[in-house]
């Protein structure tokens, strides 16, 4: 493009040059005037030279340009060729690469094919082997096949056999089918017979049904017969009953009569019963009274008897003082005497008790002494026994001593004998034997002795114990005997005492039971009373606080009551005062009820202030009204007074006489329309009335005309 641009610039420059040249040529041609020929020719020549130079330059430039163009084209072609070569090279390279790739691919394929070949060969081998194996197996299989063929043959034989059998069976089947058919035919025959039989059965059943129906009819008839027979019997019964009833009915009027009589008697008896009852009650009352009176009588009698007895007793008591001589006049003296006697008795009893106590003490001492005696005696016995023991021991010892001395003497004698014997002869072994024997005998004897002595001692001890016991018993016997003696003396006396004591005991027990019952009842009462709050005034007293809530409450209540009463009275006075008093009472009564004085004072103040305001307003209104009226009078010349409700009296300032006035009446309540009423004065001014009121119908004109008229009259007059 640069080439092209260069070319375009070249062309443009060429064109401009040509243009210039053409212009210059024209200019030059135009300037072809001889006036400035030389200079201009030179100029033109220079210009041409320049132009030719320029053209030559341009030509050279164009050649250059062409050369350059060609160069460029050559370069371009070179480049193109190079590019093409490069392309070709690239393509070749690519082809080469492709070829290389293809080679590699082919190589790989070859390898693969080789591998496959090897594999195929392997497979071939394997398959060959397998073939062999298959062949072997085939052989085995063929063998088997042969066997199987043999078997097959056998089987075929069996098949044939079986086929034979089958044929036989089929023949059998045929036979059986034949039989079946025959049996079917038989069955059909039987079925036909069955049908026949069924029909017969149906007929029979129908007959049975008819028979049953007839039987049921029969039974029904029989039942009807029975019913009828029952009815018959019932009717016979009824007939009998009717006959009886008739007889009874015949008795009916008699019965009615009897009934009436019985009813009357019943009523009568009831009355009588009531009367009887009343009478019985009276009788019972009277009997009770009788009994009471009899009891009273008996009581009277007993009382009289008692009275006599008591009088006798009294007399005896009164005689006592004479008989006993103890100055007894009154029962008090008696009681005093009795008290003295009782006191003496008490003293004696005390003495008795003390004596008894001392007696008991003495007895106790005696018993103790006896026991001591017993103990001492037992000790004595023990001592005796011990002494005997000792004496026995002593005797035994003496005996032993004697024995021992005897033994000793014996032994001495033996020894002497042995000694005497030893010297003559040597019988030592025999002697020693004998000695031993003797010693044994001696020991045995000793042991026997000791045993015997022990037995003896035991026996003696037992004997001693027995003796002791016997003596103890004797002593006790003596004691008991002595006691018995003393007891025997008293038993005779005590029997009587025992009887009396028993009686006393019984009486005391009866009294005790009675007293215990009384005690329980009293305790119940006491309990009840204590629950109710009873107390023993002699031992207890009841305290309570002076300032206790009850009294406080009562006081409060009293105070409240008083307060309320005072208030009540105050209010009543107020009410009276207010009712007698002024207008405020109405408000207060209307308010109703009691108001506190503060409120009342406030209200009063308010009322006063309101009244003051009212008064002030009234005064102000009065003054204002008077002012206004005066102003109206002076301005209009008329004094307007209201005489009655709707009537207004006008009196002129220029009136000739005092009583000259006009009366107007308001026809409407608002006072819009006014009518003139007849007065003495109005009669004098009839013309004016006609003119202004009747014709012109204007009251202000009339009034003003009237004032003018009067004014004129005044001034003239």
């Amino acid at each position, binding site marked *: 493009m640069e080439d092209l641009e260069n070319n375009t610039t070249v062309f443009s420059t060429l064109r401009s040059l040509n243009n210039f040249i053409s212009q210059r040529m024209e200019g030059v041609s135009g300037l072809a005037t001889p006036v400035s020929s030389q200079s201009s020719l030179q100029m033109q020549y220079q210009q041409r030279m320049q132009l030719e130079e320029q053209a030559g330059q341009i030509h050279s430039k164009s050649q250059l340009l062409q050369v350059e163009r060609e160069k460029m084209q050559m370069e371009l072609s070179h480049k193109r060729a190079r590019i093409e070569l490069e392309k070709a090279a690239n393509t070749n390279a690519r082809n080469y690469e492709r070829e290389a790739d293809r080679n590699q691919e082919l190589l790989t394929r070859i390898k693969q094919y080789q591998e496959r070949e090897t594999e195929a060969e392997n497979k071939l081998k394997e398959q060959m082997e397998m073939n062999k194996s298959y062949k072997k197996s085939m052989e085995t299989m063929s063998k088997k096949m042969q066997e199987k063929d043999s078997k097959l043959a056998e089987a075929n034989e069996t098949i044939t056999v079986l086929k034979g059998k089958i044929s036989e069976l089929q023949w059998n089947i045929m036979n059986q089918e034949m039989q079946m058919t025959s049996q079917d035919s038989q069955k059909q025959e039987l079925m036909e017979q069955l049908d026949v039989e069924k029909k017969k059965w149906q007929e029979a059943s129908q007959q049975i049904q008819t028979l049953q129906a007839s039987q049921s009819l029969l039974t029904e008839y029989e039942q009807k017969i029975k019913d009828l027979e029952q009815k018959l019997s019932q009717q016979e019964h009824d007939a009998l009953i009717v006959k009886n009833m008739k007889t009874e009915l015949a008795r009916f009027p008699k019965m009615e009569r009897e009934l009436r009589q019985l009813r009357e008697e019943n009523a009568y008896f009831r009355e009588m019963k009531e009367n009887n009852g009343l009478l019985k009650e009276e009788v019972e009352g009277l009997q009770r009274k009788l009994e009471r009176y009899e009891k009273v009588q008996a009581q009277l009698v007993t009382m009289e008897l008692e009275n006599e007895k008591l009088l006798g007793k009294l007399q005896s008591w009164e005689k006592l003082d004479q008989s006993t001589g103890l100055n007894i006049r009154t029962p008090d003296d008696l009681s005093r005497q009795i008290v003295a006697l009782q006191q003496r008795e008490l003293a004696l009893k005390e003495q008795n008790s003390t004596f008894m106590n001392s007696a008991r003490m003495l007895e106790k001492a005696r018993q103790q002494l006896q026991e001591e005696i017993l103990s001492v005696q037992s000790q004595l016995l023990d001592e005796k026994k011990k002494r005997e023991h000792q004496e026995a021991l002593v005797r035994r010892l003496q005996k032993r001593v004697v024995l021992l001395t005897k033994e000793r003497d014996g032994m001495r004698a033996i020894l002497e004998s042995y000694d005497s014997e030893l010297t003559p002869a040597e019988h030592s072994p025999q002697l020693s034997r004998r000695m031993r024997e003797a010693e044994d005998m001696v020991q045995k004897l000793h042991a026997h002795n000791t045993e015997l002595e022990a037995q003896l001692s035991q026996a003696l001890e037992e004997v001693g114990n027995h003796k002791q016991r016997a003596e103890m018993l004797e002593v006790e016997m003596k004691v008991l005997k002595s006691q018995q003696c003393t007891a025997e003396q008293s038993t005779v006396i005590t029997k009587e005492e025992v009887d009396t004591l028993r009686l006393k005991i019984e009486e005391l027990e009866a009294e005790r039971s009675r007293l215990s019952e009384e005690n329980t009842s009293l305790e119940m009462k006491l309990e*009840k009373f*204590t*629950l*109710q*709050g*009873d*107390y023993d*005034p*002699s*031992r*207890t*007293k*009841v*305290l*309570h*606080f*002076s*300032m*206790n*809530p*009850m*009294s*406080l*409450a*009562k006081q409060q*209540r009293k105070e409240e009551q008083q307060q309320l009463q005072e208030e009540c009275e105050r209010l009543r006075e107020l009410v009276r005062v207010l009712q007698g008093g002024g207008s405020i009472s109405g408000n207060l009564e209307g308010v109703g009820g009691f108001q506190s004085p503060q409120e009342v004072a406030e209200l009063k103040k308010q009322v006063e202030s309101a009244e003051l305001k009212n008064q002030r307003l009234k005064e102000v209104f009065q003054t204002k009204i008077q002012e206004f009226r005066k102003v109206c009078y002076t301005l209009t010349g008329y004094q307007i007074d209201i005489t009655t409700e709707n009537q207004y009296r006008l009196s002129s300032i220029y009136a000739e006489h005092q009583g000259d006035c006009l009366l107007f009446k308001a026809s409407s309540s608002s006072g819009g329309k006014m009518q003139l009423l007849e007065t003495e004065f109005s009669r004098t001014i009839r013309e004016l009335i006609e003119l202004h009121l009747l014709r012109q119908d204007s009251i202000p004109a009339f009034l003003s005309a009237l004032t003018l008229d009067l004014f004129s009259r005044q001034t003239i007059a």
Partner: protein
Amino acid sequence: MKEWLYKCIVQRLVVVISSIESSEVLERWQFDIECDKTAKDDNGPREKSQKAIQDEIRSVIRQITATVTFLPLLESACAFDLLIYTDKDLAVPEKWEESGPQFIANSEEVRLRSFTTTIHKVNTSVAYKKDSVP
């Protein structure tokens, strides 16, 4: 009061509830105190634990609150008074004065539980006015 209890002078404590207007006794709560006079300073503290005593007192109070079921309603305004039954020879202190026993005329009595501290035994009972309309 504590002194009097200590000296075993108080025999009975009565709370009387009566109507203000009519001064009529409506309810009477009575606590009888039986004092063991031998228990003075000589013996040691008694065997009963305070807890046991409080349990007994609690049961008594529960019973008292349960009496609301059968006690008749008190419609009118009432006030109460406390009466103490003491020995006759006790000196009346300043603010106290003697009074009557304030019985109820037509009364129903109900005995409630008692509790004991081994020195004092307190029996509770309530008497109320039988209703005219049953």
